[in-house]
């Protein structure tokens, strides 16, 4: 028994030291430490491709963006992080505000690929993929011509029909921030109150649950992310498939500013030990080959316009995007949360 305990301890220590044992400046240059909120198989695949192409080893720390940012703040100058990847613009903005990021090089290349609202004005972060926050509706109960914009959801005709998730969800916070930016604080607050008034049930569950609730008749219209609808349409769960089949997809605000989009993006850490490799990774992720992986395996909209959308996204057609600069989402995030609370959006 004692021997087993000893062996296990030795084993654990060895695993723990695996990293330390080969630490030297040379290896630092051959590795890239990625702090990421994305934990998709597409990303794993891309990092492997990057490793093969450049010989740079990619180490991944997966956690929520908030926690990663806290970690970087605390680690300060010695932070081993090279890049930070998040699934929303707000968090990247926050990281920038805290002085955690540095500008990306070769900005000309980036400008040639990305539209300006998808890049920080100081080039401290860059979008990798886009998702649209859209409406889905019960095909059998709602006439899509009756739908128009986020703002119109508060009309009395939708009373008891709306489904949305909790206000602690970052996508909802970003949507709210975009409404504050476009319509002003007062209207935004009234909008949130109207939404709560029209809710079919208390906010709960995730995006997929909202779609399932429509299918089950709990409500008729829900606010969800394109990305999850895409995943559900390709699910191997019969229930999810059926639910996704029962709903139609509607891109709101096509007649005015366009549908709210959010991004998954990347920034280079201020104290990156290996900024060269970090820049390399960013350019790698923006090239067509990598963008194709994002688009095909993850139902996200690629930011590189020369890459085609996946079949499902193509079927929904093109749409007008809200061209609001994504920096604003970060700046107004806190305001959005406060307005949610004041309006009683749980």
């Amino acid at each position, binding site marked *: 028994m004692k021997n087993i305990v000893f062996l296990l301890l030795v084993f654990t220590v060895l695993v723990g030291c695996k990293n330390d044992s080969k630490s030297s400046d040379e290896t630092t240059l051959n590795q890239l430490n990625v702090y990421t909120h994305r934990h998709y198989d597409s990303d794993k695949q891309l990092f492997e491709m990057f490793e093969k192409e450049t010989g740079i080893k990619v180490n991944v720390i997966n956690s929520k963006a908030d926690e990663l940012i806290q970690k970087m703040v605390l680690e300060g100058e010695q932070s081993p992080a090279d890049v930070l990847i998040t699934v929303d613009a707000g968090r990247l903005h926050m990281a920038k505000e805290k002085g955690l990021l540095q500008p990306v090089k070769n900005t000309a290349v980036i400008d040639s690929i990305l539209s300006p609202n998808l890049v920080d004005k100081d080039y401290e972060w860059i979008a990798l993929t886009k998702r649209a926050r859209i409406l889905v509706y019960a095909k059998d109960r709602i006439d899509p011509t009756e739908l128009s914009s986020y703002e119109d959801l508060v009309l009395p005709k939708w009373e008891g029909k709306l489904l949305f998730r909790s206000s602690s969800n970052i996508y909802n916070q970003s949507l709210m921030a975009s409404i504050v930016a476009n319509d002003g604080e007062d209207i935004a607050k009234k909008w949130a109150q109207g939404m709560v008034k029209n809710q079919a049930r*208390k906010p*709960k569950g995730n995006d997929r649950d909202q779609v399932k609730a429509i299918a089950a008749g709990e409500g008729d219209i829900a606010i969800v992310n394109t990305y999850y609808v895409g995943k559900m349409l390709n699910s191997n769960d019969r229930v999810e498939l059926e639910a996704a089949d029962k709903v139609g997809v509607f891109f709101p605000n096509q007649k005015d500013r366009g549908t709210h989009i959010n991004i998954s993006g990347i920034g280079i850490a201020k104290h990156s030990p290996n900024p060269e490799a970090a820049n390399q990774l960013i350019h790698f992720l923006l090239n067509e080959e990598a963008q194709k992986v994002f688009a095909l395996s993850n139902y996200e909209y690629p930011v590189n316009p020369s890459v085609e959308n996946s079949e499902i996204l193509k079927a929904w057609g093109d749409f007008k995007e809200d061209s609001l600069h994504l920096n604003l989402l970060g700046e107004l995030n*806190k305001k959005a949360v406060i307005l949610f609370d004041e309006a009683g959006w749980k």
Partner: protein
Amino acid sequence: MKQAGSSQENFSWKYRIQRGIRDFNKWTVFTVLILLFIAVPVITIFFKLFDGPGESWEHISKYLLADYLKNSLYLAILCSLITLIAGVFSAWVVTRFEFPMRTYLEWLLIIPLAIPGYIMAYAYAGFFDYGGIFSWLLSPFGIENFKLDMMNVIGLSFVLGISLFPYIYVSARAFFLTQALNLLEASRLLGVSETKSFFKLVFPLARPAIVAGLVLVLMEVLNDYGAAEYYGVNTFTTGIFRSWFSLEEPETAIYLSALLLSIVFVLIILEKYQRRKLQYTSPKSGRTSIDYRIQFNRPKQLVLTLLVSLPVLLGFIIPVIQLVQWSVRTFSEVFNQDLLWLSLQSFGIAFAGACFTVLFALLLLYFSKWNKIYSVQSASKLGVLGYAIPGAVVAIGIMIPTLSLDKNFIDWGWASKFIINGTLIALVYAYVVRFLAVAYQPLESSSLKVNSSIPDSSKILGMGNFKTFFKIEFPLLKAGMLSAFILVFIDILKELPLTLILKPYHINTLAVNAYGYASDEMVMHASIPSLFIILTALIPVIVLNKLLLKNG
């Protein structure tokens, strides 16, 4: 009258200080050091309090605090009820009655601990969802598309309660096995019925043991984030995360944690107080085990089997069925050999973490005993407070001091890179801080069971504290140490926020893997790593039970 004067003098400050100097020994120093080591994160957070809450404090207290308090209170009350009923009842039935499958059920009742609360939450939501297993089971009866809404306070209480009741089951059963028989026989001879004896005698006497389990349950409940967030129930802990991350105000989050901490602190004090009052509950002699069980006729026995199977069904079988169903669907996408490697790493980390946690719990327990200054002895109880702090907050509490150490090491040229952060040291340190209470509680109660005159005689026979510990107390504490070890092991295996923030690059755990899928709303894909967590946790649970049975 003259004596009265001199006796007051005995407790004048002059004499107290003299005695303090006399009683001060190296164990006092060690106790304080260990206490500091454990308390550094708590103290770090505590000092943050003096910065005051952030500007959104007003906003939170105006719009949200009432809701947090209400929900947390509901949750605490409902979970207490569920865990008490399931835990105490099943513990009593398995120790007191004979029925088919008893020996299997005895250890199956511990297993729900192995399922992380958030996984349980996902599994139940799926199970009762439209087109879920439950609605499929109902469809032959003509009920179509049925959904039982789990996503509310009641559902959350149920899910957490059913995954945490084993804490109470374990401590209540240990008490019933060792203490209850003599009392019960006496009561039966006085003509009191079995049921009445239980409620009038056994239950009140088992209270300290039960409350000790309940405190662990409540701390876990108040600490839950994943399940509460998914079910849309705003609790204190979701509030902490909201003010930290959404409102971008760590100060406010820390303020909220401090509030939560004081609630838990009051709970601990109450528990200690009532335990002190009820010290008569450990009779010195008497038969030490229930050596026979009541045998009813066959139909009644089967009823007992069914009743005791119910918590196992709800806490283990149903969620596992759901997970298995999902894992069959996602098998081809998720399963690969890496999972085995992940299991091995998870096992290794949990093993190392549990070893150190138990070690520190032992050190704290014994160093404080060997130290002769009473106030230091009572202060040592504070070491368990880490359990009350949300994991993410503990992580920050750990990183602030250890990073400044790391940076100093680099400045002084002792190291070229971080040697605490980003290595197992910080992670294991965090586990020790967080789970010390889980280890401390069974150790303390089993050390109380060793008659104090046994270590005393060892000392009188010329052995120092250390020799006495290794030669006498260690062998006698083995069972308590093992149950402490296993409880911590399982907790670490399930642990998420600390592991996410503090783990080294090259290490990945099953919980992190499951979380990756679940946080991307791929709950189904999380089922396979979740099942692996359960399997890995199962091994020590079985060991624990073997030991409990042997030493019962």
